């Protein structure tokens, strides 16, 4: 038997033909080579986060620059899983690179329903699990169990979540783990604060350390890192990550330099 039926699919190997992916939320819902010629350099395309129901932009959506990076708060607007499948399944199926669908995990039951809807679509390599900001080990285990199906699962965790979840991940041994940008908070006006993901080179040292910890735990890792320079890619690869996730560098005018050793 070439397939071990006792092994949950989320534990099976997931291979990328190239050691780069885009960070979720950076290149839209489906690959478009006219807008992004660097797609040919990626081993997989990761979609915007998709939720069980449609989500509208946050009323206090914000882009807040700080030294070395920026905070982005969007509310993760998306058309919901049903409409996303209707709108993008053909683009996903026809893409020149495999698709990893990023799903927003709101509850184990909702995740199970989304996984069932995504199974069977053409050219889907795996499902990324956007974990809730507050996720304890028991919740992670429940999420992984609920998402188990025919597609490999890739839990996404921010650098700040690694210490709490690393032992559970060692036990679960998912196909891959995606280390994503940490969350942060900045003041805006009138005493209000906005929270969101942090992007940019200022986060690189934190991401490198978290990647080292995950690799040392024996996990296969895709690591985002606020990458702006090729040496940062090299440093992450030297730690043993399987692939590097590229974020806002893909919004620049010269992302090619990242791919050239």
């Amino acid at each position, binding site marked *: 038997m070439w397939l071990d039926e006792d092994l949950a699919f989320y534990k099976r190997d997931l291979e990328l033909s190239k050691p780069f992916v885009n960070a979720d939320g950076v290149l839209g819902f489906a690959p478009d080579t006219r*807008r992004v010629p660097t797609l040919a350099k990626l081993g997989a395309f990761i979609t915007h986060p998709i939720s069980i129901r449609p989500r509208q932009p946050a009323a206090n959506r914000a882009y807040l620059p700080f030294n070395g990076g*920026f905070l982005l708060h*969007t509310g993760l607007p998306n058309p919901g899983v049903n409409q996303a499948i209707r709108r993008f399944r053909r683009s996903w199926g026809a893409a020149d690179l495999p698709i990893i669908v990023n799903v927003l995990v709101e509850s184990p039951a909702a995740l199970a329903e989304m996984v069932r809807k995504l199974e069977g679509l053409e050219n889907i390599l795996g499902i990324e699990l956007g974990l809730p900001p507050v996720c304890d080990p028991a919740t992670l285990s429940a999420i992984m169990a609920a998402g188990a199906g025919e597609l490999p699962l890739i839990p996404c965790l921010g650098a700040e979540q690694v210490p709490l979840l690393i032992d559970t991940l060692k036990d679960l041994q998912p196909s891959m783990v995606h280390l994503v940008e940490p969350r942060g908070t900045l003041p805006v006006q009138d005493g209000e604060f906005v929270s969101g993901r942090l992007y940019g080179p200022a986060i690189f040292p934190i991401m490198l350390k978290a990647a080292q910890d995950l690799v040392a735990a024996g996990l296969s890792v895709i690591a985002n890192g606020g990458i702006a320079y090729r040496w940062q890619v090299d440093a992450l690869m030297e730690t043993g990550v399987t692939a590097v996730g590229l974020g806002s560098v893909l*919004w620049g*005018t010269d992302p090619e330099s990242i791919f050239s050793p």
Partner: protein
Amino acid sequence: MPALTTHLLELTQLGSEITGVLDLPEKYWPKPGQYLACQRLGDLECIAIPLFRAFGDLGQPCLASIPETWHPGDRLAFFPPMGCGFELPKSARRVGLIPFEVSPARILSLVEPSLDQGAEIVLFCDPGLPADVLSRLPSRVEVLPLSSLAEDSTWPDYVAVDLERSNLVSLTERVDLFNLPGSVEVLLRTPMPCLGIGACGVCAVHTRRGFRFACTDGPVFPLKGLRHVA
């Protein structure tokens, strides 16, 4: 879409904004309201920024807002003009321009095409213009307080507005733009970090056809298409 390169020729302070002239072939000049996604070469730690067509000497591609850290001679990478700009009606003969609580540099880019079609132009703004801007305006451009538009809203047959996304409500409370007889277009200032590459959603604008992105569907929108702007 490979990036093109150019360099920054000169800088000018125009009111509170720094405008600059780039060495650009005319086919890459953005229309008023459009923008160039631009990044200083080697500045990999900063994301590309949108540079809008701005008021300048006639016949020169003047752009705003240039970052304070850029200098004449800097080499820049850019993508061809992006977004939807103003659509000045060819029939417009009385053009009202409203820079609402923002620098007039971008809205004044409509002066040249308006003059070209023989239109009268009134700049409605509070407070008055900085002296350096006023001194550079062609004599055919009249400057009046915003209240004068509220008093005689029948004058313009086309109005162009430039404001922060969050300020649309406060402007429409002062002037009933929705009931002006002519068409009204609005350049919405909002962060556009992905510049259309990522559909990141920060620049989402609530229109009567649902949410649209300022970076690709705007940043100029017909006022009557806007539902409200949160």
